[in-house]
């Protein structure tokens, strides 16, 4: 080799090694994650990288006497495979919002296969011991039921859930421990512990809301259907939010029949819906009251939440169910919340086969009505598992 050819030859060999390493990485990812959203991009990506590696090797070998025809053919194959890969990755990314952020943010088009591999690798590595977890989950299920395990939580969501809940757990346990001190606490200290407990509960609800919202967006929300009393649930929600009402000196009342209002649905999801609607009503009501009424109307169960707040203008009534929308944000800048509650509530109610609507007039308050089928009709529902709390 001449001195002039040494550098191009060395860099071509380095590039070829890099491309082959990436090819091997993709093969490993494809083997471990055959059902990944990017699985269809694996083959063209592998061809693309393999052809690129071959091109580099040919260039390295023939740098002193270039073989233009061979290089041209290899380049054409590389380009074709690259374009197919990019199309597959873009298609997969558009179907899976979580992964698309990883695949497309700031990644040049030429790096699409690497992005696909990176996305798959991130998906694989986000949960600590994710591979082992999935394998073992299958084995546990195999032992017990002889059936395959349900799809695991999306990597990013699993990570967010785990990482946020872990410090929340420590905080909650510490608060419970402090609360256990009982009479040792002065009234002022007790009040602080109570308020911290309420804040921890809000934070937990917020984490749940974000996770439910993301799962709904990804079509991964599965309702656990079981029979329960909707009236009792509404009363529980009322009590949970009573401190919020008391802080603003608002009346908060729940009206329900003496009889059990039976429903077969997901109590955790419906609790979240009611929490969001009632909490929202309390937030936007400055004086007067918020009332919750629960009734059974044929095969429909209805919860009406009426407030004596400022009301919502007609043109804003549709917008409030869109995510990240607060009514008249400039007027309510001081109010907490990201505007996720009503959007989440509507999507959850829809997913359970129900309907949510609002009637409101400026200056005369609002009534939110949640209608739910007596038996959840969603295709995403499944019966609750016995023994699972």
């Amino acid at each position: 080799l001449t001195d002039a050819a040494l550098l191009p030859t060395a860099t071509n060999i380095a590039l070829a090694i890099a491309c082959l390493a990436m090819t091997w990485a993709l093969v490993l990812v494809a083997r471990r994650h055959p059902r990944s959203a990017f699985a269809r991009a694996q083959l063209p990506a592998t061809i693309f990288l393999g052809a690129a590696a071959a091109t580099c090797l040919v260039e390295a070998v023939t740098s002193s006497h270039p073989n233009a025809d061979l290089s041209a053919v290899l380049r054409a194959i590389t380009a074709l495979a690259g374009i197919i890969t990019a199309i597959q990755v873009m298609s997969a990314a558009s179907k899976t919002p979580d992964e698309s952020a990883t695949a497309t943010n700031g990644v040049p088009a030429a790096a699409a296969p690497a992005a696909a591999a990176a996305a798959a690798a991130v998906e694989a590595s986000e949960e600590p011991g994710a591979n082992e977890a999935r394998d073992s989950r299958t084995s546990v299920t195999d032992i017990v039921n002889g059936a395959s395990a349900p799809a695991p939580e999306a990597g990013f969501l699993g990570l967010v859930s785990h990482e946020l809940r872990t410090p929340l757990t420590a905080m909650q346990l510490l608060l419970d421990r402090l609360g256990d001190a009982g009479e040792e606490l002065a009234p002022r200290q007790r009040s602080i512990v109570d308020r911290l407990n309420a804040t921890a509960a809000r934070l937990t609800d917020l984490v749940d809301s974000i996770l439910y919202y993301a799962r709904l967006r990804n079509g991964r929300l599965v309702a656990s259907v079981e029979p329960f009393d909707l009236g009792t649930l509404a009363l529980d929600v009322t009590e949970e939010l009573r401190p919020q009402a008391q802080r603003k000196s608002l009346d908060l009342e729940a009206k329900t029949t003496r009889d059990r209002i039976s429903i077969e649905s997901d109590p955790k999801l419906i609790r979240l819906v009611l929490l969001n609607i009632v909490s929202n009503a309390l937030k936007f009501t400055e004086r007067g009251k918020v009332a919750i009424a629960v009734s059974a109307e044929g095969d429909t169960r209805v919860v009406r939440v009426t407030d004596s707040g400022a009301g919502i203008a007609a043109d804003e009534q549709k917008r409030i169910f869109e995510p990240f929308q607060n009514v008249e944000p400039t007027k309510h800048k001081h109010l907490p919340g990201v505007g996720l509650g009503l959007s989440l509530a509507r999507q959850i109610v829809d997913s359970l086969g129900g309907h949510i609507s609002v009637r409101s007039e400026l200056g005369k308050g609002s009534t939110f009505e949640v209608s739910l089928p007596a038996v959840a009709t969603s295709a995403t529902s499944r019966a609750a598992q016995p023994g699972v709390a």
Partner: protein
Amino acid sequence: MKVVMIVEDDDEIRELLAEMLADGGYEVSTARNGEEALALLRSSPRPGVILLDLMMPVMDGWQMRAEMLADPALADIPVVVVSGAADLGGDGHALKASRVLTKPVKWPVLLESVRAHCN
């Protein structure tokens, strides 16, 4: 009084739970992952209940549970899963846990689960 075994990789939570259970009069053993827990189970008196986290390094809770269920000497030790995993769904059932608690767990709920097996 039976022993309560805590299998949890987070130091803060593991130590806090151990402290709170010890204050409640329970004897406590702890492990940072499934592998440590299995070694302890095979070398010490059997606990009354195991509080099991799922997402842990080295050996996670699913794998540990699979190993336990495959071993007749360990298969019937009651397990309460305490996990921050977002959605266990059918896994909770498959884990054959006596109870599945989602983090953040409330102390009275956890204590009630322990009492059910250790009093």
